[in-house]
């Protein structure tokens, strides 16, 4: 069996040889039983590979994904408002912007109360099912709001204490998504610094901050459930 021909058998199978090479290798195969046998084996490898079945993972990965994208395992997922709003950004009308501004003004009063409530009701690592915490945050206000920072810090501390109860893959997913959200928050704050009156940016920042609180809260709940 010639090594030079053997090396070209895969290309022959894949039909990537030139016409002249193809004719030459076929002439060789007609007279070389060893190369013909190897060709047959290689074809069977390709056929076997193409016939391989896909198998699902041994355990359902959806709960970890749901956490990663801010949805509770088993809960009714909520719409990602940030994505929807991002698409509608250019279609905001003046009345819509005015309505958004009014809504922000109304929410700014409620936000402080909600944040205060939230910081008092920080779920500990042992909390199995924390109460829903509908965070409506005026981003412009809470970008520097110490109560928001305190609530986040409390949740992060609780998560640090409970992380030993989470498997490493889940911890990695949580950390990764926290870093994604943190980056989104920084970018939104930076954009808002240049355009403080932009209603979309305010809403976007509020959404990211809400996502961070929600992710931390769910991670703590998960750690608590595994204690």
């Amino acid at each position: 069996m010639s090594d030079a021909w053997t090396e070209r058998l895969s290309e022959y199978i894949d039909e990537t040889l030139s016409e002249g090479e193809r004719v030459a290798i076929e002439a060789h195969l007609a007279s070389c039983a060893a190369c013909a046998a190897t060709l047959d084996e290689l074809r069977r490898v390709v056929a076997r590979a193409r016939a391989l079945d896909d198998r699902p993972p041994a355990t359902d990965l959806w709960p970890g994904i749901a956490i990663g994208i801010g949805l509770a395992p088993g809960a009714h997922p909520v719409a990602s408002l940030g994505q929807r709003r991002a698409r509608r950004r250019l279609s905001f009308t003046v009345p819509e912007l005015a309505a958004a501004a009014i809504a922000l003004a109304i929410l700014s009063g409620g936000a402080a109360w909600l944040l205060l409530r939230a910081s008092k009701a920080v779920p500990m690592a042992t909390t199995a099912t924390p109460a829903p915490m509908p965070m409506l945050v005026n981003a412009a206000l809470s970008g520097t709001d110490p109560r928001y920072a305190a609530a986040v810090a409390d949740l992060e501390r609780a998560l640090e204490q409970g992380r030993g109860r989470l498997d490493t893959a889940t911890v990695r997913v949580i950390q990764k998504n926290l870093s994604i959200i943190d980056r989104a928050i920084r970018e939104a704050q930076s954009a808002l610094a240049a355009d403080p009156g932009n209603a979309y940016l305010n809403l976007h920042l509020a959404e990211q901050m809400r996502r961070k609180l929600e992710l931390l809260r769910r991670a703590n709940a998960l750690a608590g459930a595994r204690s």
Partner: protein
Amino acid sequence: MELTTSGVATLRRDPDQAAGDAEAADAALAASGDGRAFERLYRVHVARIHSLARRMIGLDAADDVTQDVFIRAWTKLATFRSEAAFGTWLYRLAVNVILARRTTLGSERGRYDDSESALESAARPAAAPEISMDLEEAMSRLPDGARQVFVLHDLEGYRHEEIAKLLGIVSGTSKSQLHHARMALRKHLE
């Protein structure tokens, strides 16, 4: 169009087309933030994505990478254009995520052993002759480069030029790796 009863006509739809339409609808819903639609997409595609990850970088990292693929898909859904099949878009994304992870894993493992001896090791039949190694297990013993080229070409249908671009190698290397992978795997056919 098919006539069923007198005066009543129904449209007969290709099942694949119907599944594609349902997926496109779920992708649009998911892009608007609908988590349930995204979970349906996950259920449909998780086996293929996980199998791809398992074959490309091994069982140990497959779960983690699969989760990463779907999380990234969620964040990038706005970039999905419904002219293409959602599955095609997702698999392309998965390959990119897996190859990015491969770089990290390669650094962590501190090796990419594509040597002849590694190929020979993969080609060596199981110690006990009665234990036949299945093709997947034999694939997992291939050196990283040969395994990735084999999976991308023979299982996923990528061309050598595309593989070369993805892996940062030249097309000739991709062809060579593929051939050596096949030559090693043929010993496990029985």
